């Protein structure tokens, strides 16, 4: 594709030779002539100066020593995403229902679906139009999946789970497994509290590989529209996750907690049960959020505190040995002063 045409399709301003032929999108370090690359972080300025790419997508104010053409845009990430879509060579699996699948006779399967081999769909379940179900997926009785969803291999969707439109579930995701709820008896044994209530995944949610979303005994577990969840995340029973939330890999959220809209949790975070995380909150990596957090706050640490405070406290942690030494010194100097003063007073009497 000519760079001129690509600029138009990506809604970028072209700086340079519009007649260049672009063949693919590549990373800034690996790009070759014929490649389009992008740089959204100043970290990669040096790579940018050296790149062999034919063109680069850049933000409005980014300066560059690169000798290649530039596609200028307000939002380089979005332009990069669109460029990848333009050049993607992905062949979706064939439409139709594989003969090696097992689909209950009363399950409702929409138009133009693709159901792979060894897929099991339970009684009363429904699958929306154009949804792709990869091999070895199990969809329980009464579960409902919307239109244009992609369900990758080995996903388990348990009975009566409700999934909206355009949802992407990566390999091995489990939705609707039993919440971890037991009543401890006097003899110390744990009596299972049946977990049969609802799980709802709204439109445009994406859930990463081997993530697990539990169902509660009463009420519901809900992931609201546009939220993106990374691999190996655990969402406990009765949790409510707001709209457009980002949960990075290996985060864990305990039961009945409410996460507001536009929250971002970094990797390996843990959130306590029965707390409320306000809208737009950011949580730093590896944090343990033990208490509710107000709208718009940025917290980090274990237990999580204001991010700025945490950074200052972390810097002091390094200096603890010197601080202890200073306290030792001060005690010595003070004792000496006290002695001198006592002497002076004795003499003056």
């Amino acid at each position: 594709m000519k760079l001129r045409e690509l600029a138009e399709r990506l809604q970028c301003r072209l700086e340079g030779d519009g007649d260049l032929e672009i063949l693919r999108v590549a990373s800034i370090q690996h790009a070759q002539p014929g490649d389009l690359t992008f740089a959204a972080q100043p970290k990669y300025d040096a790579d940018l100066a050296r790149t062999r790419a034919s063109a680069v997508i850049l933000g409005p104010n980014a300066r560059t020593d690169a000798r290649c053409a530039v596609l200028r845009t307000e939002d380089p990430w979005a332009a990069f995403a669109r460029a990848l879509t333009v050049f993607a060579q992905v062949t979706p699996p064939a439409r139709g229902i594989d003969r090696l699948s097992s689909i209950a006779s009363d399950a409702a399967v929409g138009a133009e679906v693709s159901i792979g081999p060894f897929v099991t769909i339970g009684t009363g379940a429904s699958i929306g139009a154009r949804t792709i179900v990869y091999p070895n997926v199990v969809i329980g009785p009464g579960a409902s999946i919307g239109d244009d969803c992609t369900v990758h291999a080995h996903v388990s969707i348990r009975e009566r789970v409700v999934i909206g439109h355009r949802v992407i579930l990566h390999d091995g995701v489990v939705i609707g497994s039993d919440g971890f709820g037991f009543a401890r008896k006097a003899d110390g044994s744990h009596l299972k509290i049946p977990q049969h209530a609802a799980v709802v995944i709204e439109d445009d949610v994406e859930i990463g590989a081997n993530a697990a979303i539990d169902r509660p005994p009463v009420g519901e577990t809900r992931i609201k529209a546009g939220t993106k969840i990374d691999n190996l995340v655990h969402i406990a029973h009765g949790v409510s996750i707001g709209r457009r939330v980002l949960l990075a890999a290996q985060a864990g959220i305990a039961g009945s907690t409410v996460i507001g809209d536009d929250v971002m949790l970094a990797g390996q975070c843990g959130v306590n049960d029965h707390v409320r995380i306000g809208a737009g909150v950011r949580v730093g990596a590896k944090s343990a959020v033990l208490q509710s957090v107000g709208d718009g706050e940025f917290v980090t640490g274990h237990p999580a505190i204001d991010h700025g405070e945490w950074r200052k406290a972390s810097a002091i942690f390094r200096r603890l040995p010197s601080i202890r030494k200073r306290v030792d010194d001060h005690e010595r100097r003070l004792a000496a002063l006290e002695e001198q003063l006592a002497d002076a007073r004795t003499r003056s009497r």
Partner: protein
Amino acid sequence: MKLRELAERLGCRLEGNGDVDILRVAGVDQAGPGDVTFVSNPKYRSHLATTRASAAILGPASADDPPAPCAVLRSDEPYVAFAHAVRLFARPNPPPKGIDSLSAIAAGAIIGPDASIGPFVCIGAGASVGARAIIYPSVVIGPGARIGDDCILHAGVSIRDGVVIGDRVTVLDGAVIGSDGFGFATQRDGTHIKIPQHADVVIEDDVEIGANTTIDRPAVGETRIHAGTKIDNLVQIGHGVSVGRRALLAAQVGIAGSTVVEDDVMLGGQVGVTGHVRIGKGAMASAKTGITGNVDAGTLVSGYPSLPNREWRKSQVIVRHLPDLKKRVAELEQRIAELEEKLAECRTSDR
């Protein structure tokens, strides 16, 4: 097997009766007559005195060793000799060779000689599986993926389209290789548009990948695990990460996107590494470390944010004394106030 023969096969020096029959390998506390056991961890040296084993694999003799009540196989690398011994006595039960009739293999897929393909396995168009590979039930191999010779893919593994896996790679149950990296472009209205993740994932020779571990593919470039690296269960490898040769990643480690982990790095359990950093050759991180920047080659780091281990330990020992330290500062403040008061009194009486 006679102990004499075992000693030869393990490359150990025999001390004791070589005619003893050895039937299996067992732990030092559980072993009985007919068993060979081993002690390489000094923690268990004292257990040797009471073992009922017929023979023990031990490291080079040292003065403080208790006398062994059994024959001894001396080795410079007792743990390696133990590994070979376990292999000698293992009775693996490999599944039958051939392609199960309940599998779904695309017409264009290539299956190497003597491979074993279990029931409910799916292999996509243009994919290939090497010679003698064992593919356990319910594994899904996407279109165009390539699996080398002598690989073992345990049940429920997902290998996504186009992923390349070398020879002698073992992937444990439920692992996912080549899932989409977590990459979104957030719009001004707060919505996240997906950045398509279709680039390469390469797993080199002799890698082992633990159960339910996930390895993501990037938008551009590649995610690569170099030869001989071993990865434990429930590990997350982000998109565009490069893990070097012979690295060891313990359970629940997470490595964020585009980070480079060099050769011979060891990460303890639940270590997290931020994106776009470099962990130098031979570096180590103790369990639960949160690595937030580059780590120099050969260093040991701990804590969150991570510090050189010596520095972290010096600060960490003080943490438990913080209440005492706080009390001492309060006392200092009080004594200074008293001192100031007395000094003021002195001055007044001088006038």
